[in-house]
């Protein structure tokens, strides 16, 4: 079995998928923070995007910047077929690992 995606990588990929056409750095960072319910450093998200892109699990394109950005370009991300496949496999593997196990909170004495 291929290596599975980590929680953070899954969260970044899913955030891109949720954002659709509007998936760029800042929006992805906010999406990941929302899904993981904690503060995330920007450095972690951008490094992960870079690694995912180098592995072919994410693709990006540059678009012209706006005045508020000081004219700086904006990079939009999308998840190609390879990235979607990796997500599906991770999900399938996790489901198989968990099987029908259900964790119940232990009754307190």
């Amino acid at each position: 079995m291929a290596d599975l995606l980590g929680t953070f990588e899954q969260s970044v990929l899913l955030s891109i998928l949720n954002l659709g056409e509007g998936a760029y750095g800042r929006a992805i960072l906010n999406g990941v923070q929302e899904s993981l319910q904690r503060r995330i450093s920007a450095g972690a998200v951008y490094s992960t995007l870079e690694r995912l892109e180098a592995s072919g699990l994410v693709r990006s394109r540059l678009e012209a910047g706006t005045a508020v950005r000081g004219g700086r370009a904006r990079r939009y991300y999308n998840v190609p077929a390879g990235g979607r496949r990796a997500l599906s496999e991770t999900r399938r593997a996790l489901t198989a690992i968990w099987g029908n196990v259900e964790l119940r909170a232990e009754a307190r004495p």
Partner: protein
Amino acid sequence: MNNSKAPPRWMESLLERMLAAQKREEIVGDFREEYIESILPQRGQLRADLWYARHALSFLPRAMRDSRTMGKLLIFISGFTMICMFWLAAMEMKLRHPGFGSRMALDICIALLCLVTAVSRILPSPQNPKETWVRGMWFLVMLFGAMTFYNNARAPHFEGFVFVISLLLIAQGMLTVLTLDGRKSLGQPTK
């Protein structure tokens, strides 16, 4: 655009310096946009500046790891420490004080570790599977350097040479850990 609403120029410059050229423009742009449109109106100047500084500094470990200057400094310090340790080993053998054998063996071990570190930095191997081992070994060396520093500081006869060596070992350990490739493997789809 009102420039008084923009992030402090020096913070932007600092962030720019920490980023690779090909990613600089878009990341700095994202930060500026977030700062102006969202953070500043919600949190005010001081907290917005702190927000900017916190996120900018999150790129520091990566910048240090990728920095060529750090790599060169590590090679230089490794080479210097190696010479010092071989010198210490030679002195131990010449003077033959009680327990010189074990000290000499330790000196040679550290010298060889320095040699391996310097060579691995000169001839980098991106797929090197032993990076974790190097990290672990250098953690131990750093610990050894710190203990030597502490013991030397408390000793009745302060040894300047030992002081320098202990500092070098700590610095070398930190540089090794910082310049190691911290990338984790990514899941690849099965063909």
